[in-house]
């Protein structure tokens, strides 16, 4: 159950990232760049969570998961504040 949720989360974030980067390539709209980076980071974070909880339970990757997520959302927030008009 947990695996499915994190995997789905990673794939959804990846989908969002791809669509946003594609949109950025088309129109050069900065908001799409920052949000694309956010979702790319979130899919990495979900991936690390998957690895942490399921593949490598002997290591604790919690700090890395948190850091990746925090940076990703910080990038999004930067974009929202400065580029969403």
């Amino acid at each position, binding site marked *: 159950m947990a695996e499915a949720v994190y995997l789905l989360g990673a794939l959804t974030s990846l989908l969002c990232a791809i669509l946003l980067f594609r949109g950025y390539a088309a129109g050069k709209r900065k*908001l799409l760049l920052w949000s694309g980076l956010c979702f790319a980071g979130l899919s990495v974070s979900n991936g690390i969570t998957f690895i942490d909880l399921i593949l490598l339970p002997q290591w604790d990757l919690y700090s890395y998961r948190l850091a990746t997520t925090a940076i990703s959302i910080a990038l999004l927030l930067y974009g929202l504040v400065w580029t*969403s008009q």
Partner: protein
Amino acid sequence: MAESDQEQRRVDEFILEKIDSVSHLEALLLLWNSRPKEWSPEEMARRLYVDTRIARELLADLQRSDLIAAVSNSNESYCYETRSEERDQIIGLVDATYRFQVVRISNLIHSKGSSAVRDFARAFRFTKKEPE
């Protein structure tokens, strides 16, 4: 000229769906009122008192939204081309409305949310068909 409620709704819908900014509207109406005159970005820039670069973007945006046509054997000239009677009718209505209700129409356009936000939403569209 009294306007029925239904006409006003059609105008509002058209503006909400197709018009990105007041500048876009003015550019469109400029081409509409002078049809079928062809305009280059430089000419439009002079007429609308904007930068040529902005005029170029306005014209490209309008063409991408299928509201005006690029003149084929020229570089960067655009004109209004009649696609359908219904489209002509709607733009005529919009033109008439805008003359008398500049403030209301401007507010309507500004209430739409910025174009960055709309581009965000548009990025998630991956099917080709036009919205109804």
